[in-house]
């Protein structure tokens, strides 16, 4: 659905995006993570035909960037970083304008559908200026969907929203992904990326790494299992560390932190050993690295 090859954008001497190679499949929610100025918005603008790449190629929905920009714009929806609504106009009027520009056939029907879907129908006659940030964002989201695009580009969809509004917008995005739409999501919100995205790309001018959130964690960090005991001591830790598949084991506050490659395979053996040594095992869990750890690690290294 989205394919890029060595996509590069320079503004004078400044390289905004360098050699981006990306493949986003149909129905996938792909997240772009990266610090400010990493090139996320520039990439999104290139992929929506708003700005031209300096070199490299990109194909979106079968149309080539730089050659079929009009067809790209016709077939994708974009939610820009700021809603950019016509504040003096009503919600309905805002959508009618865009429905007409997107060549929607049933303007009234589509406008009503999305106003109702996003809970704005009752307030459709009110000027957008009177809306809260969350409502404006929902209206901008409706605007991006009026022409039923199969590919959606969402730039910071929950930025500056309160937790409740952000939650509603996230749920809506999850619903869109269930409809089989391809979504490219730029965000700073790591938790949001973790929850919504099938795969994540960490961008810092160059694409540092792409994978599923789980594999990003496991590829970058060793897996650690925590064994909670009634009482843990150095002798127990030493005994566990002696097992051939255990890479490391330390005792901290009645817990054993065990590093190993394949917990699913080896945890039962460790548990048997601990019980055999008379340890009172309370519970076992994996020490899960957050996406934030992954992100910070990659951005620092990158």
């Amino acid at each position, binding site marked *: 659905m989205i394919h890029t090859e060595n996509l590069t954008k320079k503004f004078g001497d400044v390289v905004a995006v360098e050699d981006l190679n990306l493949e986003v499949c149909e129905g996938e929610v792909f997240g772009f993570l990266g610090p400010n100025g990493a090139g996320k918005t520039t990439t999104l603008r290139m992929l929506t035909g*708003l700005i*031209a790449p300096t070199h490299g190629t990109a194909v979106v929905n079968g149309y080539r960037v730089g050659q079929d920009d*009009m067809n790209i714009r016709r077939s994708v929806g974009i939610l*820009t970083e*700021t*809603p950019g609504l016509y504040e003096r106009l009503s919600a309905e009027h805002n959508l009618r304008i865009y429905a*007409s520009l997107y*060549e929607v056939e049933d303007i009234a029907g589509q406008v009503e559908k999305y106003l109702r879907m996003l809970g704005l129908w009752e307030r459709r006659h009110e000027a957008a200026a009177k809306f809260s940030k969350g409502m404006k964002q929902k209206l901008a989201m409706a605007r991006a969907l009026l022409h039923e695009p199969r590919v959606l580009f969402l730039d910071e969809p929950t930025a500056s929203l309160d937790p409740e509004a952000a939650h509603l917008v996230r749920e809506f995005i999850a619903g869109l992904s269930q409809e089989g739409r391809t979504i490219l999501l730029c965000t700073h919100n790591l938790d949001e990326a973790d929850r919504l995205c099938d795969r994540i790309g960490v961008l810092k001018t160059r694409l540092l790494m792409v994978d599923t959130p789980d594999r990003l964690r496991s590829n970058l960090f060793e897996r650690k299992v925590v064994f909670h005991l009634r009482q843990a001591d150095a002798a127990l830790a030493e005994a566990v560390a002696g097992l051939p598949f255990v890479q490391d084991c330390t005792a901290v506050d009645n817990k054993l932190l065990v590093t190993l490659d394949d917990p699913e395979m080896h945890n039962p053996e460790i548990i048997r050993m601990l019980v055999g040594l008379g340890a009172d095992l309370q519970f076992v869990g994996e020490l899960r690295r957050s996406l934030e750890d992954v992100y910070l690690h990659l951005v620092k290294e990158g």
Partner: protein
Amino acid sequence: MQKIKTIIRKEWADVFGNRLVLLTVLFIPLVFTVIPVGLLFLTRGASATDLPSELPAQARHLCPESATIMECFQIYVLNQFMLLFMFTPLIVPVTLAAYSIVGEKATHSLEPLLATPITTFELLMGKNLAAAVPAPVGTWFSVVVYALGARLLVGKAQAIAVFSEPMWWIAVFVVGPLLSVLSTNFSLMVSSRVNEPHVAEQLSAVVILPLLVLFFAQVAGLVILNRSLILLLAVTLVAVDALLFYLAVRLFQRETILTRWR
């Protein structure tokens, strides 16, 4: 065509919802209606004894042979205001068009608009017509009021002599709209290149200067407005308008506008 209409409707709904812009748009035609009608009112008591024994050649040239010196002078005075009515189509679009692009930049509504399948031609044509149309309409209103004022305050014969002259019709219905388009194109070009609506408005106001020069030249008697001059002005404006619109489309670089607006 549908997209051009959508842009025009959007512009009018959005811009005329801005009270400041609306007041500016209404204020200019109002001023240029009040000034000439007010002057006719103040000078209505003048008599032939106040006039020199012989009128300048340019004044005689405008009058029917049967007209008295007083009537001829009044026709001359009525004609002097023609240029004044050309200021409205030049000034009003400056406010509208200057706000048009840079105003959208400021409110961040330009990016979603540019992301739609609209061509630069359609976008600028819509914005151009939206900014250019109200001014001639305002001018026609002013001229109608002025013509009625001339009929009531000066006299029927003089009013007919002035307003039946094709020069006035060309000036009001051809040159006025063309000036409006000129002003709009120039302002759109400026608006695409700056970041502040006020800066766009101030820079765009430069477009008024040539008409001001013509106005003062006419007042000083250096230029005499006649049919040939007005026709020449109309033909020149058609060419200049086409060139400026072409340049406006060429200068409207989506990428530059999006990436340099912060």
